[in-house]
């Protein structure tokens, strides 16, 4: 093998660093019209009237649209195929706004400045309605808040309960039962590229949508639902993307942009500024979790009782899946004989939530891992040893879906990680009674590989030989900047004996690609990678068959390597082969393969963090970090490490700094700019070591499993556990802002 397991740079890296890659906002189309959105200043209000004032008279204004003159179709921005059933509670412009930042109106104009100037001329009269601004408050009202509520906007949006084993007897037998509550904050993706979309009319009554998205087919399905038109009229292409992390998984601007293009007959650009991206797109939901853990004296977890409450914000989107997603990930980590789980998702009049790197996993593993650490601390048990005792073994099945977890190597992550980090010695030495306290902590996590057993978990890849001897990969691919195009090109190249740079990756296009779910659920390498590998094997066979004719050999004698077909001592380059085939009037070989998933193994990770806490100022520095990941096999170790480094940066922010902080009194978003929303910058990053466990997953391409989402999941609990170790505290409200740390330290000092 010479392409897989190699540190190959991004195939689009040079285009990116030289600025040649054109992002959506860089595209200049002739006759382009620009738009600006009027956003609600009210948390929950009926729009009584909208007076355009002289907005329409401003030179350059093309039109103004709001709920009275736009389609009233309900839609759900989280669906990924046409006709998918989901609560369709969102509208392009609702008559009742449901959160600060909800969409009230849009102005289309010759320039964005004119469109924004026109917004200030519009006068809207609102009638305020009672608003629900916290998850706890949401539980208190079961019925509709307004006459417009029902069947949507009723709490809880979703509720799921699961019981396994005899929990009562586990609690009764336990040597210790710990009860811990954990709160995780609402967090924002902070992609460098704010949300943006282009749309223009195409012949035949069609409309083209060019958008940085995670699935062109999801965009097509959502826009078709919002506009109530045939999906075939929508031609969606994926634009290069400046970061997403789940923030662009749901089309937010696309329905409006397509509507404006159809209505005006012009190419239309919609672009949010940074503040609008904070207040009017999606966030990771805040969660509240209460866990009771029954422990035996030897560290075995006998039983666990978990209750989770998730604030999904003003629209359902995919929030109703969260209680189930959290349950799925929770029960795939430890082998626990008795488990009870209750998860509820509730609407509030706050900004909607959606996908963000892990879809429920960061929340549930933060809850579970912080709670377990405190329970173990109560008993004086070592966090690593106890986790080794409880973590699932290879080939285990989860108790909820009864799915095999594959070659689950969580124990290897723990054992090798503890050894590499020097866990035992570092955990023992803790300097007390000093202003600066050092502590070490760790956490484990698991995450999924794709959507199986979801029935549509499949991917179709086409590989075809090009006249220059390279190959084209056609598959609805959405590289979010993490390098999936590169690792899939490596897989393709490996199978047909080319270099990764010889694989031309076509951009996702609803007109030319087979249906695909897109980049979500950590499925690119494991699911799409296998489709590409199988298509590559089929293309290699087709190429070998033709090369056998050219070289007068048997096809099973042909070896494809370095762009050449060789049999015995005769050889031909693939470019020569393509030319030879053309002169004979033979089509160049191509192969298409549809891979349907048959498994959903777990990826596992153990993270180890060292922190330095200033007990006077409450400032925390993460001073050393080790991330150990069970990836099956790394297709590109450099990109795997890149994913992990980025995951740690996001996770440190989740643990220490980041909170969108919706005011529970007013519904106002406090952190709507980078001045107020604090992310971990380069100086906050510790030295990071990465250790990969490569034991191979039999169902994955070349043994590979997912890394994208799990990279960030154990970070926050590892950091929080390290802080609790440093201080002897029981901090469980994230993020650990200096104020919270100081409060905990003061309390500990008072207790003496």
């Amino acid at each position, binding site marked *: 093998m010479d392409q897989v397991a190699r540190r190959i740079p991004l195939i689009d890296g040079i285009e990116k660093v030289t600025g040649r890659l054109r992002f959506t906002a860089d595209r200049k189309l002739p006759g382009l019209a620009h738009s600006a959105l009027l956003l609600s200043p009210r948390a929950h209000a009926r729009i009584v009237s909208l007076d355009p004032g002289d907005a329409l008279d401003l030179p350059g204004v093309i039109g103004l649209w709001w709920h009275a003159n736009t389609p009233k179709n309900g839609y759900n921005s989280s669906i990924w195929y046409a006709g998918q059933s989901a609560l369709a509670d969102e509208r392009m412009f609702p008559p009742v706004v449901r959160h600060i930042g909800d969409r009230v109106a849009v102005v289309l104009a010759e320039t964005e400045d004119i469109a924004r100037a026109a917004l200030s001329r519009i006068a809207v009269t609102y009638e305020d309605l009672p608003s629900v601004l916290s998850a706890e408050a949401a539980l208190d009202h079961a019925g509709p808040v307004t006459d417009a509520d029902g069947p949507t906007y009723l709490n809880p949006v979703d509720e799921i309960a699961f019981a396994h084993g005899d929990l009562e007897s586990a609690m009764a037998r336990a040597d210790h039962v710990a009860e811990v509550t954990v709160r995780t904050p609402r967090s924002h993706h902070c992609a460098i590229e704010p949300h943006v979309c282009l749309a223009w009319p195409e012949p035949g009554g069609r409309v083209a949508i060019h958008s940085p998205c995670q699935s062109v087919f999801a965009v097509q399905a959502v826009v078709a639902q919002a506009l109530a038109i045939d999906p075939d009229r929508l031609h969606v292409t994926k634009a290069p993307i400046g970061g997403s992390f789940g923030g662009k998984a749901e089309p937010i601007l696309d329905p409006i942009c397509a509507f404006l293009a159809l209505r005006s007959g012009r190419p239309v650009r919609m672009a949010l500024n940074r503040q609008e991206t904070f207040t009017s797109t999606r966030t990771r939901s805040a969660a509240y979790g209460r866990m009771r853990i029954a422990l035996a004296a030897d560290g075995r977890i006998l039983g666990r009782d978990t209750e989770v409450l998730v604030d999904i914000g003003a629209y359902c989107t995919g929030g109703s899946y969260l209680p189930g997603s959290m349950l799925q990930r929770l029960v795939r980590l430890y082998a626990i004989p008795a488990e009870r789980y209750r998860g509820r998702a509730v609407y509030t009049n706050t900004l909607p939530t959606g996908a963000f790197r892990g879809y429920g996993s960061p929340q549930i593993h933060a809850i579970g891992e912080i709670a377990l650490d405190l329970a173990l601390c109560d008993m004086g048990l070592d966090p690593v040893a106890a986790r080794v005792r409880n973590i699932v073994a290879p080939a285990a099945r989860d108790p909820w879906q009864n799915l095999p977890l594959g070659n689950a190597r969580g124990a290897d992550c723990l054992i090798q990680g503890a050894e590499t980090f020097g866990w035992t010695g570092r955990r023992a030495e803790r300097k007390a009674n*000093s202003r600066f306290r050092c502590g070490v902590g760790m956490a484990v996590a698991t995450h999924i590989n794709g959507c199986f057993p979801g029935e549509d978990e499949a991917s179709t890849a086409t590989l075809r030989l090009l006249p220059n001897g390279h190959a084209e990969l056609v598959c609805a691919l959405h590289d979010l900047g993490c390098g999936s195009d590169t690792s899939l090109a490596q897989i393709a190249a490996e199978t047909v004996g080319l270099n990764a740079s010889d694989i031309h990756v076509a951009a996702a296009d609803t007109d030319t690609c087979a249906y695909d779910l897109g980049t979500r659920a950590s499925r690119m390498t494991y699911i799409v990678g296998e489709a590409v590998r199988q298509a590559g094997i089929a293309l290699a066979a087709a190429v070998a068959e033709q090369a056998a004719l050219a070289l007068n050999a048997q096809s099973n004698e042909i070896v494809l390597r370095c762009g050449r077909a060789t049999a015995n001592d005769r050889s031909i380059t693939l470019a020569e082969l393509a030319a030879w085939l053309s002169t004979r009037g033979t089509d160049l070989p191509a192969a298409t393969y549809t891979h349907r998933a048959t498994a959903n193994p777990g990826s596992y990770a153990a993270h180890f963090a060292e922190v330095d806490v200033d007990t006077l100022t409450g400032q925390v*520095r993460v001073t050393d970090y080790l991330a150990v990941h069970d990836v099956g096999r790394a297709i590109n170790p450099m990109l795997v490490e890149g994913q992990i480094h980025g995951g740690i940066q996001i996770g440190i922010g989740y643990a220490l700094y980041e909170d969108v902080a919706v005011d529970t009194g007013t519904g106002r978003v406090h952190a709507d700019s980078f001045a107020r929303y*604090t992310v971990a910058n380069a100086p906050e990053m510790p030295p990071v070591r990465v250790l990969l466990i490569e034991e191979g997953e039999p169902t994955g391409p070349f043994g590979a499993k997912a890394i994208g989402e799990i990279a960030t999941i154990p970070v926050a609990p590892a950091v929080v556990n390290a802080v609790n170790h440093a201080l002897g505290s029981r901090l469980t409200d994230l993020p650990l802002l200096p104020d919270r740390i100081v409060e905990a330290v003061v309390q500990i000092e008072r207790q003496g």
Partner: protein
Amino acid sequence: MKRSSPVYFVAGGTDLLTSARQMPLVGTLVDLSGVHDLAFIESSGADIRIGGATTIAAIAAHTKLAARFSALSQAAGECGSMQIRNRATLGGNIANAAPAADLVTALILANARLKLFLPGGSCAEITLEEFRSGTGALIAEAVLPNLELLPRSAFAKLGLRRDLTIARINLAAMAEFSDGRFGSVRLVAGALGPHPIRLLRAEGALSGCPLAPASLRVFVDALAADVDAAIAGRASHCWKRRAIRGLGLDAIARLCEMSPRDPLFDETW
């Protein structure tokens, strides 16, 4: 210039031009960043003089200034990010009048005076405390009177993270310090109110005392008392009254050219 349209002076533009803020829709923007005579640091004379359009990076890098008044150099070195420091100016930091402005805390400590060009064409010299932004005056230079400077000074700040952060509190300290003993001490803290304030209790606690755990203990308690007097009842009070102890020790350690992790300071704690 006619008074009918408002005039805005801009130098680095790091406050006025950033897209998060609403730009004034009418008026005249006068760019001062190319006015050579407004960008200078004169530290060889008795008083230190710094031009209003001097960049913060230039202030941070000026070694002679650092030798005479390191609190200002350090404040400049920790203000914003490198990109911001390369563009932002002394005059802008003063005129923007943010309660957490890092340079202003150090300038107040030095009892700085400002030379202004007034709208009518005349000049004026005022104290920094007397300055109010939005009057149309142009900040030509800041003067740090030699008589006000003590031999040693230092600056420290606390934000939500280490770099590129807006101070939740900042502190500038100036003192006579020799043979392990403090003489006169002056302390000014920012972000405890609309303008930086003197911390008189803490100054009194440290003046004339040795650098020793016992006197440092009295000093940090006095810092907390100064915070209590300034912001009691505010949401941030609980954190700030404790955090200022850490910040105070950081500033004193820096002033004495020691590490805040020196065992001496741990004994205080």
